[in-house]
C-alpha cells in the first residue's frame, strides 16, 4: 500500500513539475561600506531563484550570506567582525523571471537582473528572516529579525516595501527583543534602462541598547514630566541609540559590475523616542527606553560600493 502511495505521489509530482519553469542566479559580492555609523568590508554570497507555475503564478526566493570585518559599527569604533544570514521568499501573480526581485532582501543591494527577459510582471507578498551575529564587545547586539516584503513589478520596474522587526518566536527563540537593530523599513523603486539599473528609496532604521530588566526602571532621559518609567540599560553602550531616516540612491551597470548605493539622512534621538514611546506607551510594552531626547539630530550617511562575480550559471 505504501509503495502505491509513493508511486502515486511521484507521478503527481512529475506531472505537476511539467507546469513549472524557472531560473536561478547568484553571485559572490564584495562591498566597501563607508558611513557615519559603519565602516566595513563585506564579503557575500547570494543565491536567488524564481519559478513560475502555469504562466501566471510565481514564486521567488533568495539567500544571502554576509561576512563583514568592520572598524566601526553602530557608530562605535571597534575592530571586529559580524555576519548575517538572510532568507526571503515571495509568492504572487505574474510571470516572474527577470530576477529583479533579487534585491528585495535588506542585507544586499545588488540585483542580479536579466535585462534580456521580456516578461517580468510580478505582484507578490512574502517573508524575510535575518540572523545577525556580531563578535567582540558588540556581541550582545546580535539578534534575529523577521518581517514581510511586498513587491510589485513590471518587466523593467519594481517597487518593494520591506519591513523587519526583531522577533522572539519560533524559529527565533532566545532572541533579544527591543535590542540592537530592532526595526527597519524600506520603500524602494528600481528601474532597468538598457543594461543599467537605477533605484531610489526611503528607509528607516532603529537601534536601541540592551535593557537591564534586572533593575527597577526610573526617570531621567525620556521622562519628560516625571510620570513614566524609563529602563536602565546594560553597560557598555548603555546610551547607544539611533533612529536613521534616510533616502537612498542606487546605480548598477552590467558593463563593469561596479554598483553604488548611497544613503543620506538624519539620525534623530527625538524622532526615535517619539516613535518608540508611542509604541511602548500604547502597546503595553512599558517602560520606555532612555532616548537622550535633548541631544541634537546628527547627519547620517552610508556609501556602499560593491562589485560582484557571477558565472551566469543558469543561463
Amino acid at each position, binding site marked *: 500500500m505504501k509503495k502505491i502511495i509513493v508511486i502515486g505521489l511521484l507521478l503527481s509530482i512529475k506531472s505537476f513539475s511539467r507546469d513549472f519553469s524557472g531560473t536561478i542566479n547568484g553571485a559572490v559580492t564584495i562591498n566597501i561600506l563607508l558611513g557615519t555609523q559603519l565602516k566595513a568590508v563585506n564579503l557575500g554570497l547570494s543565491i536567488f531563484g524564481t519559478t513560475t507555475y502555469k504562466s501566471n503564478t510565481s514564486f521567488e526566493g533568495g539567500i544571502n550570506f554576509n561576512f563583514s570585518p568592520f572598524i566601526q559599527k553602530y557608530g562605535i569604533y571597534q575592530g571586529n567582525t559580524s555576519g548575517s544570514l538572510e532568507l526571503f521568499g515571495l509568492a504572487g501573480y505574474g510571470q516572474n523571471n527577470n530576477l529583479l526581485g533579487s534585491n528585495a532582501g535588506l542585507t544586499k543591494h545588488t540585483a542580479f537582473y536579466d535585462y534580456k527577459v521580456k516578461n517580468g510582471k510580478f505582484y507578490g507578498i512574502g517573508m524575510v528572516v535575518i540572523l545577525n551575529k556580531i563578535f567582540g564587545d558588540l556581541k550582545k547586539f546580535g539578534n534575529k529579525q523577521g518581517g514581510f516584503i511586498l513587491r510589485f513589478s513590471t518587466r523593467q520596474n519594481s517597487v518593494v516595501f520591506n519591513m523587519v522587526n526583531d522577533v522572539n518566536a519560533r524559529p527565533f527563540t532566545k532572541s533579544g527583543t527591543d535590542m540592537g537593530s530592532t526595526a527597519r523599513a524600506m520603500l524602494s523603486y528600481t528601474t532597468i534602462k538598457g543594461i543599467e539599473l537605477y533605484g531610489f528609496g526611503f528607509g528607516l532604521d532603529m537601534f536601541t541598547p540592551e535593557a537591564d530588566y534586572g533593575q527597577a526602571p526610573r526617570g531621567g532621559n525620556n521622562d519628560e514630566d516625571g*510620570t513614566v518609567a524609563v529602563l536602565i540599560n546594560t553597560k557598555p553602550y548603555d546610551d547607544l541609540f539611533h533612529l536613521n531616516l534616510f533616502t537612498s540612491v542606487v546605480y548598477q551597470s552590467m558593463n563593469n559590475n561596479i554598483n553604488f548605493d548611497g544613503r543620506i539622512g538624519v539620525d534623530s534621538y527625538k524622532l526615535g523616542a517619539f516613535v518608540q514611546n508611542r509604541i511602548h506607551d500604547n502597546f503595553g510594552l512599558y517602560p520606555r527606553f532612555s532616548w537622550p531626547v535633548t541631544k541634537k539630530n546628527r547627519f547620517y550617511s552610508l556609501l556602499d560600493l560593491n562589485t560582484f562575480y557571477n558565472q551566469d550559471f543558469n543561463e
Partner: protein
Amino acid sequence: MNKLLFILLSVITVSCNHTYFSDTVIYDASQQKHEKVIRLDLSGENLQQLPEDIEQYINLRFINLSNNPKLDLTAAFEQLKNLTNLTVLKLDSNGLEELPSNINHIVLLQNLSLSYNPTLNLDKALKQLSSLTYLTALNLSHNNIVEIPESVSGLVQLKNIRLSDNNINSSLTYSRLAKIDELKFLWLDHNNIKELPVSVGELTQIRELYLGNNSLKNLPKEIENCDKLCVLYLGGNEFKDLPNEILETKLRMLVMYGNQITTIPKSYKKIKPPLSILVLDNNYLNFEQQKIATKYFTGFFLLSMKNQK
C-alpha cells in the same frame, strides 16, 4: 508588525508636534526670546518671588519651582495663571504645609509634583486639587504617607498617581483609589509593604501597578479581580515562587527580578496569553529550572533570566 506600522505613522506625524521633547531652560534674567521657552527650570534659586518677566513666557508648558522653600506661592500662582499653556508644575522639596487656595487659578494644570513635602496637609491639599479638572498626574512620593485620605476620590480625572517611597500599608488606600475611574497607573514601590490587602482587588480600573522593592511574599487571590491590569512590577520583593494568583488575570507583563524564586510552578505550563513578557533576572533558578522556563514560555515576546544566584 503593528509596531512597524506605528513607526511609519509616527514618522509622518512627528513634524506636526513641535513642542515634543523641548529642552528645559534654566532661568536667565537676560533671556530675550521668552516665547521660545517651553520648559523653564527655576529650582534651587532660593526665590521669594517669581521674576517679573515670568508672564512673558507665553508658551511655557512646564515650570519647575522645586527647592524654593521661601517662595510666596500665592503670589507666584497669580502670575502663573496668565500662562495659558502651563500644564506641568513641580513643587518638590518646598517644605509645604498647605497649598495656596489659588492653585486652582492654573486651570489647565495636568501634572503636579509635590514630592519631598512630608509636612503637607494631604487631605486639605487633595480637596483643593479636586477643582483642577484637567489634573491627570500627581506625584506624592517621599512624603511619609501612611494612608491616602478619602478626598483623593475627588480627583476624578487622575490617571497616574505616584506614591513611591512612602509607608502606605492601609487597605483603605486601595479602596479609595478604586473610586477614581480614570486611574490607570499606580506607583507603590518602596513602601515597605509586607502584605497586599484584599482591597487591591477593588482596583478594577488599574492598567499598570508598580509594587517593586517592598517585602511582598505573595499576592491575594483578589488580584484576579483587576480586570484591566496589564503590567505588574514585583521586582525586589521576597517571592519564593511565581504567584499563581496572576494566572487568571489578563497580565501582559510580569516583572519579578530580584526575588528569591527557585522553581517554575507546573501551573505555569499552560499559561495563557496575553502574558508575553516575563522578567526573572536575579533570582535563584538553577539550570534545570531555566530550561523549564524556556520550555513553558516559548514564544513569549520577552523572557529574561539573567544573573541567577
